[in-house]
């Protein structure tokens, strides 16, 4: 054993593990060095440093009953535990805990799809169910439902929703937390609780109405450490007949302001109901070779002048907005016609091209022909097809001749407006220039995946050999977090190494929110055994000295 839970002697820890072994079986307790290696976060920016967050053991229960018994043992001995679903939240954290020495409760074996309701359009899943698993089961049943998946299909449907992950299909389904309906949770004392309608025994609408009666507590279990979620309902979309993609191009940098304003109105009416993609032919895509001139221009103090920006365009259109509309061909044709009329009213010089109309479902050939990593184009995830293509980013290729050993994401949310894009491009170009970091793109670009906001997301790459590079990456993101907060932009999700820092920026009313959550934490998990430190929430015995 390489690391003990804090406060435990090796003998005491072995005695607790023996108790747990009687519950889950010795086969499902992992303490050997080679096994603990697999509980490290492969994308940790603290890799191989004294600060790396490490598990003392992995424990893998197979059922809610086993999990309850394990939690009761942990509570009795005040053993810190840290649950994972599939452990594939890479870029935002892997299978490793926030608090070194915690025992990882690995829920991958709890992988049953308990229900898929064809007519009410939902599934009920356990934590170990991946997007691949749910997709395959839907196909096997000949079901006519779609999943909405994030980029990597091996993630947990339940875990991703709890993390407030996002997908790529219809506006109603991309916010995975927003699409959840009903939780079952094992609490710190080992009790099982169901939320929403599920609190009523024999509930008939647990996966239909998320609210139940009285105060709503589901949010405590999202990016939280108040319980271990063992079941979750997720809404599924009835497979659409088709998808239409159209492009709107504008030539001036500041055209982004009316472009986004009109987009917002059309999305609010669901005239545009797929993922809108904003790209810039002038700035290039996310895996473009570095062009420091672009970053320098965008970093101009007070913002670059219109003249300088337009001279740089050299005749290229500044922005391309690609909009997606799901539905039967006649409906999407009418929507596209209306969308063009609306954009013409505010941008008379805009040009339009209708690129593609997809008849669904896609054939295997049509799936293989989809774009791979061109984020401006329809990809497998646009059609709810789970895959791992996104890992091309960072894998060895002419764009990345030295492959990375992973990355962490910097993911601030900014307003869905052209003014905010202009401001954010200026602020982040200046910051990245100061830090000398290439993030895989020449300009911070707005991702529209979160409905009603933009995510100015970019990766910072890591190495298992060059620990100085990782130190620099972490320092860069630390700096970016501060700069973002000064502008009123906060991160939506982050790796454990960044969570204290980020929670610290949500400090309205002298940290009123964090203090409120901490009071709740102390009440329902008084010994602080559950996921200590998750998202900056520490139990009272570990709070001091961390601020």
């Amino acid at each position: 054993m390489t690391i003990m839970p804090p406060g435990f002697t090796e003998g005491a820890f072995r005695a607790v593990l023996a108790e747990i072994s009687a519950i889950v079986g010795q086969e499902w307790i992992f303490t050997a060095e080679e096994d603990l290696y697999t509980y490290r976060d492969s994308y940790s920016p603290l890799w191989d440093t004294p600060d790396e967050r490490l598990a003392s053991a992995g424990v893998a229960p197979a059922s809610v009953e086993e999990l309850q018994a394990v939690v009761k043992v942990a509570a009795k001995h005040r053993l810190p535990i840290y649950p994972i679903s599939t452990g594939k939240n890479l870029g935002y954290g892997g299978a490793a805990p926030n608090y070194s020495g915690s025992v990882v409760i690995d829920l991958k074996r709890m992988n049953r799809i308990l229900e898929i309701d064809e007519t009410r359009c939902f599934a009920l899943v356990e934590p170990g169910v991946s997007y691949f698993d749910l997709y395959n089961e839907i196909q096997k049943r000949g079901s006519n439902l779609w999943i909405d998946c994030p980029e990597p299909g091996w993630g947990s449907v339940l875990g991703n929703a709890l993390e407030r992950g996002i997908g790529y299909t219809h506006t109603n389904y991309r916010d995975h937390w927003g699409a959840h309906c009903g939780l079952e949770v094992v609490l710190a004392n080992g009790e099982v609780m169901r939320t929403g309608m599920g609190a009523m025994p024999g509930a008939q609408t647990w996966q239909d109405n998320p609210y139940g009666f009285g105060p709503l507590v589901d949010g405590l279990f999202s990016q939280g450490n108040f319980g271990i979620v063992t079941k979750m309902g997720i809404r599924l979309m009835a497979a659409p007949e088709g998808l239409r993609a159209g492009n709107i191009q504008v030539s001036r940098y500041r055209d982004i302001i009316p472009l986004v304003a009109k987009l917002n109105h059309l999305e609010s009416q669901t005239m545009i109901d797929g993922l809108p993609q904003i790209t810039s032919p002038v700035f290039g895509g996310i895996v473009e070779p570095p062009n420091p001139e672009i970053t320098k221009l965008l970093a101009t103090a007070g913002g670059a002048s219109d003249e300088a920006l337009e001279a740089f365009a050299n005749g290229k259109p500044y922005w391309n907005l690609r909009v997606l509309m799901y539905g039967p061909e006649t409906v999407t044709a009418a929507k596209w016609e209306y969308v063009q009329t609306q954009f013409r009213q505010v941008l008379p010089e805009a040009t339009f091209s209708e690129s593609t109309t997809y008849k669904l479902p896609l054939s295997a050939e049509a799936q293989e022909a989809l774009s791979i990593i061109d984020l401006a184009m329809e990809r497998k995830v646009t059609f709810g097809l789970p895959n791992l293509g996104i890992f091309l980013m960072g894998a060895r290729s002419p764009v990345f001749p030295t492959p990375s050993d992973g990355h962490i994401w910097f993911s601030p949310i900014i307003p869905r407006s052209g003014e905010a894009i202009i401001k954010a491009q200026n602020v982040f170009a200046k910051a990245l220039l100061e830090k000398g970091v290439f993030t895989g793109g020449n300009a911070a670009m707005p991702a529209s995946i979160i409905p009603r906001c933009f995510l100015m997301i970019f990766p910072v790459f890591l190495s298992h050999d060059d620990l100085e590079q990782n130190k620099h990456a972490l320092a860069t993101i630390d700096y970016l977090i501060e700069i973002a907060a000064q502008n009123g932009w906060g991160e939506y999700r982050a790796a454990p190494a960044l969570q204290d820092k980020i929670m610290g920026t949500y400090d309205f009313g002298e940290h009123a929110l964090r203090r409120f959550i901490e009071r709740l934490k102390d009440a329902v998990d008084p010994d602080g055994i559950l996921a200590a430190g998750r998202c900056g929430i520490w139990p009272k015995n570990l709070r001091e000295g961390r601020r």
Partner: protein
Amino acid sequence: MKQLTMTFFVLMGLVPATESFADPSTEQLVHGKAIYEHWCAPCHAASQHAPGTVALTFKYKREVPPVLVMRQDLDPDMIKYFARNGVSIMPSFRKTEISDPDLDALAEFIATNAKRSAP
């Protein structure tokens, strides 16, 4: 996007469009193939969408086939090592994901298939 388009234009010529499977002849190999298809193929199949295949294409420049099941230089221990330790952006895989018996079957499937693919 020009650079990216060029990259994948080049790739189209390099990445094999199909992979040859030996018919699994034993229960162990059938099981190994199922594990391969679930855990390995999304990154290592013969497809431009497979990042592992793309990375190995550029790493070995045609010296060895970039598709795992077409390699002839992989022995079971090597396959097991990479599954448990990861490499580059490929993370390590836990025993709750691929159990030891699953990994034995997987390694045997890939290594056996590689031998049969040998000229």
